[in-house]
């Protein structure tokens, strides 16, 4: 059940897939280095109590990213678990 949204709002338990790289620069390179390459699925493990950052599980690693700092990548929501 794939629901295609250009940039879904992160919430706990959500599983997303990186669809394409739209941005440029150091910032996007860092996200690629961390394994957020096109086609990669990641799940949102937790949202910080104050709403930001979000903890994601990508390739078995737990990373925190700020919502606005994921700009430059496009996602689609794959499923909503839990």
């Amino acid at each position, binding site marked *: 059940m794939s629901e295609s949204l250009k940039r879904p709002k992160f919430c706990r338990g959500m599983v997303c897939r990186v669809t394409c790289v739209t941005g440029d620069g150091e910032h996007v*390179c860092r996200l690629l*280095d961390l*394994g957020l390459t096109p086609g990669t699925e990641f799940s949102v493990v*937790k949202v910080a109590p104050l709403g*930001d*950052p979000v903890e994601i599980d990508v390739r078995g*690693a737990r990373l*925190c990213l700020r919502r606005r700092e994921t700009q430059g990548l496009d996602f689609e929501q794959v499923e909503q678990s839990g």
Partner: protein
Amino acid sequence: MARTKAAPASTACVALVGNPNSGKTTLFNALTGMNQKVGNYPGVTVEKVTGTYSHQGSQYEVVDVPGLYSMRPVSLDEELATKAMAGTEGRPPDVIVFVLDASNLERNLFLFSQTLAAGLPTVVALTMTDMLARERAEIDVAALESRLGVPVVNVVAHRKQGLAELQDAVARAIAERTVPDIDLGFPTVVREAVFRLHDALARAGIDANRSEVREALLNPESAWNSKLEGNPDIVRAFQEERQAVLGESIQGRTVDAQTRYAWAAKVRRAVLHSSDSRVRAVSDAIDRVLTHRVFGLLIFFGLMYLVFQSIYTFASPIMGWIENGIQAVQAAVSPALAGTPLLQSLVVDGVLAGIGAVVVFLPQIAILFCFIGILEGTGYLARAAFLMDRILGWCGLNGRAFIPLLSSFACAVPGIMAARVMPDARSRMATALVAPFMSCSARLPVYVLLIGAFVEPQFGPAVAGAVLFLMHFVGLAVAVPMVWILNRSLFKTKRLPFVLELPRYQWPRWRDVALTVTTRVKVFLQTAGTIIFVMSIVIWALLSFPKSEAMDSRYKAAYQSQSESFKEARSEENYIQAQRVRDSYLGQFGRAIEPAFVPAGFDWRITTAVLAAFPAREVVVSALGIIFSLGGDADEESVDLRSALAQARWPDGRPLMTMASAASLMVFFALCAQCLATLATIKRETGSWKWAAFSFASMTTLAYLAAVVVFQVGSRLL
């Protein structure tokens, strides 16, 4: 194991490379133990850590390369790390020990695939396998070895397992000099383009291996391309191939990252055997409590309260013992040197006081780094940053700045040192520059004295308490806009996303905690301590000279000619001491710059006391005591000092200290950089006097302007 200053030619150089949180530091500590040297790369808050070990009669120098995510540097730390590996900083390493975190294979393998391009013999140290075992997962080391084409040694550094095998493998790798070469599975178009370009380079007489050519092809910004600039044909060939393969520039890195990660995922699938799906189950259960929106925050604030109390309250008896100890030594030494007053003063007020000024910081530094070692070692520090990032992130800092800034409310020195928990050089710099604005405990005596003398008698204890509370936020109120501006001006270049890793919880490694504490204490004593000691003696000299018998007898005569009531109020000794300070170089300077401080409501006496407080803010109280002929023992609770301040007059008879000038002096102290130890620590942590000078100049300017505004507005309103 002998410690060598400059490594002799026979010493092999080992570069320890890996992701942040890969267990690199634990391995480094296990390999080198106490044989570590901590330096600083000049001008940046990046430390250069090296250590040595000997194995079967040979010496090895280990460079602990800063943790990195990519060999394409995007942060300052990574830039220095890649330089260290390329050998532009010193000589290139003989061998790379790649620290591979078994619990985070894909991302670690991604970096591994990039380090191959350095063309150096490599050994993989596989860490965290004990953690995987607890989650009933296992790595097939033999399969990993054949996939990576390099020796893989399983190490459990904190239990010293696998260290000897690792050292053997390192020795063999250096002797055999085999450079790994593996097929990462780049798309055929890329491989063919690399093949053609490699040939073209060879024809042009340029020596390059395939991975270097690929790097130059896929990454137009790489250093490799600048080396080709002298050769227009080659540059054109690269451009054409790049156009054909990629199209847009970002696609190069995307293709590169995608290929490497696809390779890494393939390797992981082949070597990792997991029989249990409950990966990280324990860690996640702990996280559900510790990052809970209610309990998580409560536990966080409870822990932070404990940390703060420890350095603010619990450290003070130890600091008291140190001060008493120094005083006891001073008292013991003083009579022996009574025959030579100048030497006596130098030893007692200069050297011993200088040593005291350094050692007194050690309890706070040791306690804070013990906490940081534990919090970092367990993985909690990352959670604390996760909880606090929103509060600190908007002005350009990040969640990790919380502990350094909180600690700075006790003392900026351990606070600035704690800035190294921040992952990148620029946020460390920003934190180190705003930390001194936090209201440290040394400002308290100044506030207590002035509030006690001017606010409390007029408005009562409730208002006095409120003012004292508000004074603690003056620095914070200035620091927040300051860091906001710094981030939009000085540190504008390269804003990186804030990446925080949440590693699995684990028990702290006590050996690592102990090493953290001893390293920090050692670093402080060796660098900041030396500066503080030397400058304390300089300030002593400025306060003690010029000095002559003739001047002393003139002071004596002046005292004798005073009225009886004058003599009753102050002893001859204290009077002479006050006159000496007035005529000292510092006193002369204070009188010379008095006109500049008149707009802030300070006369030469206040100005001189402020100048004399350069070694440490709290010195202003005893300096005022001396200047007002009450002796240097006067403290902030002293009734005599309070009344002396209240009765002091300008030459024209106006009262010197009013509510406005007291407020102005307090605001000045809230913002000024009258703390030698802080400046020495900034110098040490940033590796440059430039930042210490910047901090001093900006804080002093702000303090002066704020004091002038407060006095000018205050004297019209109050």
